[in-house]
């Protein structure tokens, strides 16, 4: 099964993202990142998916990245993480997808923003998707967790949902605060608690 020489793939996933921007991440609205640069992580739990005849059901992948300016200005450093439970075929499939080589959004676009690609990691993923209070731990190298944004006056949890029809990572999401957003691998290390986070359900294909 291939189109234009590329293997057809698609998946549906739960997605958690966190970065160093303030709540609401300006980049979501085509504005410059809060601090002028971006450090962020994103993790997908594939509920159902395939790459050609290779099943991706139940597998996971993630990235941690640093971009010196806005993401679209490029020159980023990335480390990709893949589910250690994947077999050789599945690993190749996930690598083809996440590297952008297989085509399809969002990976094809994001991949073009990286100039330094660190060694991919095959590690364990522990997801706890629970709406606004979600968490993922990836090996002992990456943790991201979320909670509601709190009203600065009343302290009450806020409820903010964004719809973004032209979004290429997600088209709608819960707008949240991170509790953890940290990664520690050689060449990439940061920790940004109490910053921007999103939880979404996504569908991708090429």
């Amino acid at each position, binding site marked *: 099964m291939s189109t234009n020489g590329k293997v057809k793939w698609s998946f549906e996933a739960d997605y958690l993202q966190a970065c160093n921007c303030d*709540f609401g991440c300006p980049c979501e609205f085509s504005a410059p990142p809060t601090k002028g640069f971006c450090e962020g992580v994103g993790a997908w739990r594939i509920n159902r998916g395939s790459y050609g005849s290779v099943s991706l059901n139940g597998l996971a992948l993630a990235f941690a990245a640093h971009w010196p300016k806005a993401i679209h200005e490029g020159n980023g450093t990335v480390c990709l993480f893949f589910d250690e439970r994947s077999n050789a075929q599945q690993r190749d499939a996930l690598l083809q997808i996440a590297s952008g080589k297989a085509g399809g959004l969002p990976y094809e676009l994001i991949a073009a923003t990286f100039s330094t690609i660190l060694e991919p990691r095959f590690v364990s993923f522990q997801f706890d998707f629970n709406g606004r209070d979600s968490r993922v731990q990836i090996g002992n190298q990456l943790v991201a967790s979320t909670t509601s944004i709190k009203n*600065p006056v009343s302290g009450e949890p806020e409820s903010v949902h964004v719809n973004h029809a032209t979004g290429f990572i997600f088209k709608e999401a819960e707008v949240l605060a991170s509790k953890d957003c940290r990664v520690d691998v050689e060449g990439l290390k940061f920790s940004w608690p109490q910053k921007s986070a999103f939880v979404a359900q996504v569908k991708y294909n090429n």
Partner: protein
Amino acid sequence: MPEKSAYHLKGILLGACNCDWGCPCNFEARPTNGFCDGGYVWHVQEGQCDGVSLTGLTFGWFGHAPGAVHEGNITSLLGVDDRATPQQRQAIEKLVVKTPDAVPFGIFMSLTSNFLGVRYTRVETKFDGVRSRIRFDGIYEVELTPMKNPVTGEDEPATLIKPKGFTSKHQELCTTNKMRLAGQGLAFEHPNKYGEYSLFEYKSA
């Protein structure tokens, strides 16, 4: 003196400020530039206050906050369409300026330390979603336009759904071609920054 008002208003809200697109304040984050120059304009499509119909009227609240809005110390003024009858003027002034319980107006006024007063002027409106325009003659002008993708230049639509939002619960986010206030004692100009086209409904308890 604080007063009570019985009101029910529905209509269109146009917001604009000096923050970057998306406005961090929407998410309880600090304003982009550390302070807020902004305006909200309400066009009442259907509504009344204390039995006085306000249907078809437009009024706007414009302010400068030295920090985040909720930190107060705001300088503000109220602009109202001069087509309003004496009865309607009285109802709007009472609702917006003198009724602490009227959300969101009472919140904005409670954060205002320097109120410059009410200005009556001719208001011209053209509503077309995130391409709407409003002009308060001699005071304020805002013209909305869609946000653009920084790479492709294409329109970027974004909607916020905020069930607990106190100005509106449904916001179409955009930017502005024009955004200028020239009120006595308060003036600013911030085109190409944050804009929103929202729907509002406010009702007294």
